[in-house]
């Protein structure tokens, strides 16, 4: 695969639609049909192919829009980020394989990293030279990270010795670095004493054991840390500092990452309808009143999610803190998509080799999508955690009577 990376980015100040038009044009000219899930040519890209594609997207101005230019970004605003996401969402390209770096590790490093760390890590994330995984969850600490047990003890030479186990770590086997959350004290310290590191995954003592998930993939893993020695310059901030910054970053990221989702869901819905239309037997389903009504409901839900995202961008552009509002979009997108995938699966699951080729492609897409969607209400904070956050931090519901 080769892509046009000799791109002059438009100045968004000259024309409000310029950046979105640029993204639309570049994607139309460069995204191969083999990377489009609604194409009969589609095939899952290899890791190397995905890296090359995402690196090209970055060069074309479609990744790292809001990152400062000195760290490899494009120095633009959330408005351009959103404009690009709308076009990225409109095409059924594979999910990013570098999202942990771009949407989590990068922003955390930007917030608390030293200048040397920023200069080293940030450009490499955008060029896809470094892949990252997220080492937060543990067997005893899923939603409740206060129960984290992985321990970092500083040694006389300043380095840190880490012991513990992480689990449900997406992309661990292919990652170059881990954004590792540890504690310096004991579990009794709860949220105090948390310490973050940028750990090379080839450090002696790190062992990755893949876990097979219900969608048949083995993209997440258990990661064991046995007497792993980490240099002090891999530390991200002081104890407590890195973690509290990460919490702030995460609340922003929850609102801003993968903004393309509602536009992607809309593209998936189009694919579902096109696949059904492509086969006379299946097309009959689209004449059923309850199917039409359910599609109308899904379109309505998608518009609501678009509204939440666009309003959040306008608020942030106006300088308003995003606070806990990312929980609204997380709860909304995960449950909207999970429900949509269930509906799509019901419509498409009966497809046989006698049906159209596009319907068979759709059956694969939506069956995998249905299974993967089970995870959507679990990862990045379960629906119950999001409801807790909304109740506590947005509605300010008391748990005791006010005096």
């Amino acid at each position, binding site marked *: 695969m080769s892509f046009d990376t000799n791109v002059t980015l438009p100045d968004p100040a000259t024309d409000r639609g310029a950046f979105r038009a640029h993204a639309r044009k570049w994607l139309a000219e460069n995204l191969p049909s083999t990377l489009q899930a609604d194409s009969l040519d589609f095939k899952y890209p290899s890791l190397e192919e995905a890296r090359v594609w995402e690196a090209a997207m970055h060069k074309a101005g479609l990744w790292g829009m809001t990152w400062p230019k000195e760290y490899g970004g494009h120095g633009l605003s959330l408005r351009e980020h959103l404009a690009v996401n709308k076009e990225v969402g409109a095409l059924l390209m594979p999910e990013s394989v570098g999202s942990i770096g771009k949407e989590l590790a990068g922003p955390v490093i930007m917030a608390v990293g030293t200048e040397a760390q920023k200069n080293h890590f940030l450009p490499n994330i955008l060029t896809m030279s470094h892949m990252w995984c997220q080492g937060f969850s543990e067997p005893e600490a899923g939603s409740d990270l206060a129960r984290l047990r992985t321990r970092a003890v500083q040694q006389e030479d300043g380095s840190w010795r880490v012991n513990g186990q992480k689990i449900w770590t997406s992309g661990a086997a292919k990652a170059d670095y881990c954004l590792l959350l540890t504690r310096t004290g004991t579990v009794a310290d709860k949220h105090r004493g948390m310490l973050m590191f940028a750990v090379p995954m080839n450090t002696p003592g790190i062992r990755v054991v893949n876990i097979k998930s219900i969608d048949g993939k083995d993209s997440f893993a258990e990661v064991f840390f046995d007497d792993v020695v980490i240099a002090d310059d891999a530390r991200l901030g002081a104890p407590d500092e890195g973690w509290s910054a990460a919490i702030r970053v995460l609340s922003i990221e929850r609102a801003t990452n993968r903004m393309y989702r509602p536009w992607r869901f809309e593209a998936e819905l189009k694919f579902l*309808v096109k696949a059904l239309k492509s086969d006379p037997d299946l097309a009959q389903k689209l004449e059923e009143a309850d199917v*039409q009504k359910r599609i109308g409901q899904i*379109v*309505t839900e998608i518009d609501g999610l678009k509204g939440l995202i666009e309003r959040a961008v306008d608020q942030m552009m106006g300088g308003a803190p995003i606070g806990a509002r990312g929980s*609204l979009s997380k709860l*909304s997108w995960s449950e909207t998509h999970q429900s949509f995938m269930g509906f799509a699966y019901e419509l498409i699951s009966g497809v046989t080799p006698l049906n159209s080729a596009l319907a068979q492609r759709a059956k694969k897409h939506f069956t995998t999508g249905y299974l993967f969607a089970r995870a959507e209400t679990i990862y990045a904070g379960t629906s119950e955690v999001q409801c*807790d956050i909304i109740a506590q931090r947005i509605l300010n*519901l*008391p748990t005791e*009577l006010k005096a």
Partner: protein
Amino acid sequence: MSDDSLSPEEFAEAAGAAILDAQSRPDATRDVLAEAGLFSVSVDEDHGGMGLGIAFSVPVAQTAGEKQLRFPIVEQIVLARAFAGTEQGEALLGGALTGTIAFAGALEAGFAARAAFATTADVMLVAEGEGAALIDLASVTVEADATLDPEAPSGFARLEGATVLARLDAAGYAALKRDVTILFAAFVNGAAEGALNRSAEYLAQRVQFGRPLSAKQAVRHHLARMKLGTEAAIARLRRALLDNEFAESRAIETALTGALSNAVFVVEKAVHLHGGMGFTEELPLHYSLRDVRKIETALQAGAQTRAIGRAFIDAA
């Protein structure tokens, strides 16, 4: 008046004060609302209005829903705007007439139905061919349909001998229906917001098992989902009123269907969360329940949702 120096949100506070004033003087509701200028926001300046777009009437309608105003304010606003420059438009704007809209029937069919507050209104808009006619309700007999709402029944009228006061052509009627969609979405979003806020306040004070009910996770999660639905509904309407990056306008239909499905969910849940109190007429939650269900029926929300799906299928 220029739109540039104002934002629609600034109208919410003024509308709220006027609506509270109107509710404290039930015999003078229409006069108070007219005097406060709530019917004139989106009427042309040349015809006595403020000359602002329909988006500036959104906070007025939303506040009316939130405060459970029992007056056909959406109908009054859109009729005053549609008939601006006519004798009837001036009367609607100034509060000399109360207007309603029949969402079923037609002049040529000889009947009009699903008109809110028709038993107390003075004029009613009814479809006529591709356009619509404003008829004098004194010229017809209105039968109250009090099945759902005895205090503010919908109306049914047989139109033989109806006096037509003014007419809208097809384009004018289409523009009015767009305004109706927008402002009813805002009204029911307000109803949902009001029901949610009343529930959150009540549950923070209602002590059972030694703690406020808002301490219970099941209750907190209900309220969180009510908040999510209401925020999404408000954001959906806001988005529908804004052009996209290419200065293209957006469809508004999902703003109404989404607002209605959320409002029904939120208000019904609010009744439930108030426990036995929620089932009493003493608590005014039932007004919002009746209002959102009447609007849902009047505008045929289920059929509209299906039409949105059908349109998506056809376009895909």
